[in-house]
């Protein structure tokens, strides 16, 4: 029964495919998987927008959307209809083809990333040997789309927003990759399914998630920071800092193209959270050994939603950084610390079992954190924001 619940979607797929002739079965299975992804994640996206608006509302002491449907939960549908029916305004000086291709390219690249995410036991569209690499390759491709959008709009705000976004994404992509490399070093594989399987073990009732190791915790924190920056979320949402740049690179987009950008951004957030879940939070594995009776996909999506919640929480809490602070933070704190984390991971890997490696790794990371924090706070460009008031 448990297995049935766990594998319900896989069995459904097999059952549907079995009606077809043998030659078509494999393409059909893939098609079904694609359809699943294309349906499920945008649905989550729709849900997330409502949650985000309501959550931000709670944080800012207001109600949020509450008019459409019960408790305002039909809001995304209304938004979708509005987007689809709105006029698609293209600036006259805009570079037509590029302007059109940018949102499409973004959404395609983001959707590609989901192909390698294991959302449950045996639930991965392509179990690729180099899955992690594929994911990052797709993530890197989104930058071109962002640039295209900003440049083709022929708008200074858009271009500046695009340049900021690209610079930020490139800077934090390095961190993102390096913090993931720590996991790869321990697992010895780039395959995401293997990474999850490596974490799907229990000592007593506690799981072997990588976040429960010193290097994993540090790596996860770095990963989370980089992921926030990579998806241009607050507090790293400078590229679309509306007070300076109107709306950044998608200022000149409206109607469904804008909706695609919106979708692309949220899907990127979902996919990067999914990857973080997979790498550090044990993917679809249950948090405690006696909870394994729940279906694996339930755990994956629960963790995913938790991450989304944290994203929303941060957006409601933290103020926006300045561009130079952002860059300094990436190159002078996060990157060195991630490199140190790699070193510590290697130590962990080769120090063998025992308490010693826990102590050594924790002490190194803690000391580095404290020292670098102190040093960084001393630096002018880097420390707490100082306000200058008009005299």
């Amino acid at each position, binding site marked *: 029964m448990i297995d049935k619940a766990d594998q319900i979607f896989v069995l459904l797929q097999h059952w549907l495919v079995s009606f077809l002739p043998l030659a078509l079965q494999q393409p059909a299975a893939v098609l079904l998987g694609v359809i699943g992804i294309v349906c499920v994640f945008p649905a989550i996206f729709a849900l997330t927008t409502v949650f985000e608006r309501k959550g931000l509302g709670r944080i800012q002491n207001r109600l949020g959307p509450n008019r459409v449907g019960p408790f305002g939960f039909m809001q995304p549908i209304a938004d979708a209809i509005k987007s689809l029916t709105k006029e698609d305004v293209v600036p006259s000086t805009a*570079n037509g083809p*590029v302007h059109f291709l940018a949102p499409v390219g973004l959404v395609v690249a983001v959707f590609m990333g989901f192909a390698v995410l294991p959302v449950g036991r045996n639930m991965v569209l392509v179990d*690729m*040997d*180099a899955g992690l*690499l*594929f994911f*990052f*390759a*797709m*993530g*890197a*491709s989104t*930058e*071109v789309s962002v*640039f*295209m959008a900003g*440049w083709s709009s022929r708008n200074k705000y858009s*271009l500046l927003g695009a*340049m900021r976004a*690209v610079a930020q994404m*490139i800077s934090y*992509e390095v961190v993102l990759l390096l913090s993931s490399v720590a996991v790869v070093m321990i697992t*010895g*594989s*780039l*395959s995401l399914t293997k990474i999850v399987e490596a974490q799907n073990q229990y000592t007593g009732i506690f799981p072997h998630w990588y976040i429960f190791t010193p290097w994993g915790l540090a790596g996860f924190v770095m990963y989370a920071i980089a992921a926030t920056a990579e998806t241009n979320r607050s507090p790293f949402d400078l590229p679309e800092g509306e007070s300076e740049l109107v709306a950044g690179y998608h200022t000149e987009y409206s109607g469904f193209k804008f909706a695609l950008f919106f979708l692309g951004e949220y899907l990127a957030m979902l996919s990067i959270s999914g990857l973080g879940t997979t790498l550090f939070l044990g993917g679809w594995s249950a948090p405690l050994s006696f909870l394994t009776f729940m279906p694996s996909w339930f755990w994956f999506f629960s963790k995913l939603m938790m991450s989304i919640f944290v994203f929303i929480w941060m957006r409601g809490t933290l103020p926006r950084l300045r561009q130079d602070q952002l860059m300094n933070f990436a190159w002078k704190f996060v990157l060195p610390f991630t490199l140190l984390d790699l070193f510590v991971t290697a130590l962990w890997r080769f120090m063998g079992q025992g308490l010693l490696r826990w102590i050594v790794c924790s002490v190194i990371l803690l000391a580095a954190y404290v020292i670098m924090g102190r040093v960084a706070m001393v630096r002018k460009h880097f420390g707490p924001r100082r306000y200058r008031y008009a005299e």
Partner: protein
Amino acid sequence: MTVIFYLIAAITVAGGLAAVLLKNLVHCALAVTIAFGGIALLFLSLDAQFAGFVQILVYIGAVAILIVFAILLTRGSDVPKDGVFSPTWLTGVAIASAVFAVMGWAVINSVNAIPQLAAVPHVTVHDIGVALVGSYVLPLEILALLLTAATVGAVIVAMHEKGGSE
């Protein structure tokens, strides 16, 4: 020699041609991105998954972006009045076609003489990793040095000269 190959090859060549021929530099950069992507797809069609993804990651994710940045920083997106091609473009094209002719001729003449294995080589990422830190560890280390030097060098070359003599 499947349809897919011809399709990808066509995309790649088209991207390359566009990159060379388009007047707007940013269009060129985007076209070359397509060419890079096409090459990556060719790699994938050659069962070189790892190389293909690395190609995407490095070329589309980094080099293309770098090129775009360079274009914008040098105000290259404005089309110059006196044309984008050098006055001696004809000789350039002639030389390029001569090179292609010679190489194509060489390929056609010799390719049938080379033994070919049709079997898909079974190479995993794990094997590549082992080879990188095994027999190729020295090049790897040198490469690391090179990349560091290149990073530092690029930063220094492109850095604003403070209080320069300009």
